[in-house]
């Protein structure tokens, strides 16, 4: 990575490919993950912007861009339904499995977690490298699937059988890609758990861990235990497609007037159970690291301890546990029976409690703080209400009665995008603005950052708020052209508004892209290793951290968020400041004074 090149005054010189390509350094791997994931986020976003044209102006030729595609997919610039389905399925898959999770876990987790626990590297550096490259292979398979006959997977990101089993070749590629991605996340999660448990610096007890580390730790358990059932399900769907088995194919299936030549006796519902057994914990894999990032940035920018640190930790652990027993609330409409529905409705209501506790703790942390409105903080401040909208709109979906009406409508799309887009992705942007100076030694531009924030905030809401109303009007999430139905035609204006907001949101990201690359070379250089005056250990390293991270192995003497300690001369006390307040600080910062706490 280019941004890594100029700060690395290593004592030993490794060949380029070993230093930046097949590197075992957690920081290089983290940056590799982050850059790859950002590329996929942009790519997945482009797929969606194309879909939005068809939704806003159904059946009209797409200006200019439409001419770039083959006559199979877009004859005379008009998108065919099969291509629309490919874009939809691949948008979901790419955003979740190749964008957000690799950025949140692979990127931030790899880069920040070992630094925050005072470790020289991850526990298994080679495994870490393998994790990235297997992920990369999975990404290439997914991208390549667009070029196979009849195109990429088109059965939605959920790949429900029996349609997914009889779908064209792209689905097989999707399954192989998923097998690679699952393997990658397995390698990563083993690494994260072992590193967190075994490699903490001296004195860094579990209840002194930064909240971000807790979030990553719980996330790793979700990835470790929830992904394998999907791998099993993926293997079975591959068998259904390749070997002609009937794991998910019921008896007596008739397709286009012809009885399918399968033995039958399988269960399409089984796929849904196995899929959602992964995919519900996956929702928390998307959100927990984001909460971790928000926790760090809120404490740092309010200059006061995170409110209810222990409560937050207990909540996030409980959240992780509960996320394994709510999966069937995605399946209320399948006819699995009221008893099971009631059970999952109850667990779903229970899981909302820790989420609310976490959000409330963040909101209470703001109270009475002297807030610094830095760019990362702005994104975190927006995260709190945006995630709240996402969470609260989920309640009617978790209750069986109201879900009957809302199931599979645009309301669902609006709901989970509020959680993931202005929720998680805002937190990820915050994380990029926050840790960029540590990784590159340069600050990101403030004005461009604020421009990026305000435009993104407005257009995010412009995209997803109308979807709530479109959904309540009854428009199905899979519709290619809602104007064909009277109830859909009524809300076509709102759908067009979503589309325009989405395109403007795309334009707003140019501020970020320009800022990212410009700041890498020309950004303001940081004056100290700790530009945000933060307490956690990642700021105790040289900037950018060399291989092996710390000059001297840190010894942790206190909790993670000792901001504005009464009687202290500075408003923050780093975790590694010893009891007599001595810590190797650059001259620019005053040495913290003792504070008796634990």
């Amino acid at each position: 990575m280019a941004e890594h090149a100029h700060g690395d005054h290593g004592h030993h010189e490794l060949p380029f490919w070993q230093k930046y390509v097949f590197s075992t350094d957690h920081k290089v791997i983290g940056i590799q993950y982050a850059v790859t994931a950002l590329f996929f986020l942009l790519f997945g976003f482009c797929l969606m912007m194309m879909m939005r044209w068809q939704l806003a102006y159904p059946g009209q030729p797409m200006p200019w861009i439409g001419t770039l595609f083959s006559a199979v997919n877009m004859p005379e610039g008009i998108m065919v339904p099969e291509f629309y389905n490919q874009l939809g399925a691949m948008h979901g898959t790419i955003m979740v499995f190749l964008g957000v999770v690799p950025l949140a876990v692979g990127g931030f987790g790899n880069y920040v977690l070992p630094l925050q626990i005072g470790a020289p590297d991850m526990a298994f550096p080679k495994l870490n490298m393998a994790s990235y490259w297997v992920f990369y292979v999975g990404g290439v398979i997914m991208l390549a699937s667009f070029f196979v006959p009849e195109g990429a997977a088109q059965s939605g990101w959920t790949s429900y059988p029996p349609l997914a089993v009889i779908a064209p070749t792209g689905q097989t590629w999707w399954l192989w890609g998923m097998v690679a991605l699952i393997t990658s996340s397995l390698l990563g999660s083993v690494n994260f758990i072992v590193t967190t448990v075994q490699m903490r610096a001296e004195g860094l007890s579990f209840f002194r861990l930064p909240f971000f580390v807790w979030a990553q730790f719980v996330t790793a358990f979700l990835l470790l235990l929830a992904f394998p059932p999907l791998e099993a399900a993926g293997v079975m769907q591959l068998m259904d497609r390749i070997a002609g088995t009937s794991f998910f194919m019921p008896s007596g299936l008739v397709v286009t007037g012809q009885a399918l030549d399968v033995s039958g006796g399988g269960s399409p519902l089984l796929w849904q159970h196995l899929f959602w057994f992964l995919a519900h914990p996956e929702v928390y894999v998307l959100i927990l690291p984001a909460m971790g990032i928000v926790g760090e940035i809120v404490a740092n920018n309010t200059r006061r301890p995170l409110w209810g640190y222990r409560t937050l930790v207990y909540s996030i652990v409980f959240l992780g546990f509960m996320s394994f027993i709510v999966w069937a609330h995605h399946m209320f409409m399948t006819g699995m029976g009221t008893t099971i529905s009631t059970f999952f409705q109850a667990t779903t209501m229970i899981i909302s409690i820790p989420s609310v506790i976490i959000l409330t703790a963040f909101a209470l942390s703001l109270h009475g703080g002297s807030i610094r409105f830095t760019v990362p903080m702005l994104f975190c401040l927006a995260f709190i209400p945006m995630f709240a909208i996402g969470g609260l709109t989920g309640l009617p979906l978790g209750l069986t009665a109201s879900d009957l009406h809302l199931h599979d409508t645009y309301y669902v799309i609006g709901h989970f995008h509020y959680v993931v887009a202005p929720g998680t992705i805002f937190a990820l942007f915050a994380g990029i603005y926050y840790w960029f100076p540590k990784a590159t030694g340069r600050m990101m531009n403030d004005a461009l950052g604020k421009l990026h924030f305000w435009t993104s905030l407005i257009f995010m809401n412009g995209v997803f708020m109308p979807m709530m109303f479109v959904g309540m009007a009854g428009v199905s999430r899979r519709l290619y052209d809602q104007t064909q139905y009277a109830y859909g035609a009524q809300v076509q204006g709102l759908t067009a508004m979503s589309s325009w907001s989405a395109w403007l949101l795309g334009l707003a990201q140019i501020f970020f892209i320009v800022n990212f690359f410009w700041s890498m070379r020309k950004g303001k250089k940081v004056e100290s290793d700790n530009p945000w005056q933060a307490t956690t250990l990642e700021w105790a390293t040289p900037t950018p951290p060399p291989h092996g991270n710390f000059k001297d192995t840190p010894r942790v003497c206190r909790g993670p968020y000792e901001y504005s300690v009464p009687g202290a001369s500075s408003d923050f006390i780093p975790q590694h400041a010893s009891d007599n307040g001595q810590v190797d600080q650059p001259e620019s910062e005053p040495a913290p004074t003792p504070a008796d706490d634990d």
Partner: protein
Amino acid sequence: MSVEEIPHTVEPHPITGVYNGKFGIWLFLASEVMLFGALFSTLVLLRVGAPSWPQGSELLNVPLATLNTFVLIASSVTMVMSWASLKMDNFGRFKLYLGLTVLLAFVFLVIKYFEYTHKFHLGIFPSTSTFYATYFTMTGLHGLHVVGGIIVNLYLLFPGSKLWHTAPEQFANRIECAGLYWHFVDLVWIFLFPILYLL
């Protein structure tokens, strides 16, 4: 980014009592439990949902599978012996026992091969029925795990064993981790055998 800068730790962590590799392999096995757990759940779900389900012992070759069970259990024993030999500083015996483990794993696969090809000769494939679909998928995935174990053990037997002369403790730890994995593969078969062949 050289490996020698960050030294490998062989000591158990003071709090957890295990070294990193052992902790890692246990976590990996936990995820493997979830993988096979999903497949076993599939079998249960499809079976209770089916109007009729064949008796495994009438369709599958129980004597061969019983033989295979003993072959795998024996290979688990030799795997432990190879690790114990290292702990007793007897490198020659270690090579013998690990070699035996690999050999027994091959015997398992050869027997499995005969079982499979016999079914194919009779015109029975995974697509024949849901019973055979689960049989071939589960034993096939288990077979892939056996192949994985053979590759790891062959590596540790030949090129990987050089480590013994420079870092004996690290090498013994590797054998222990490979052993844990191998016992898990054995254990999966011990569940597969009664559920598929006998029930």
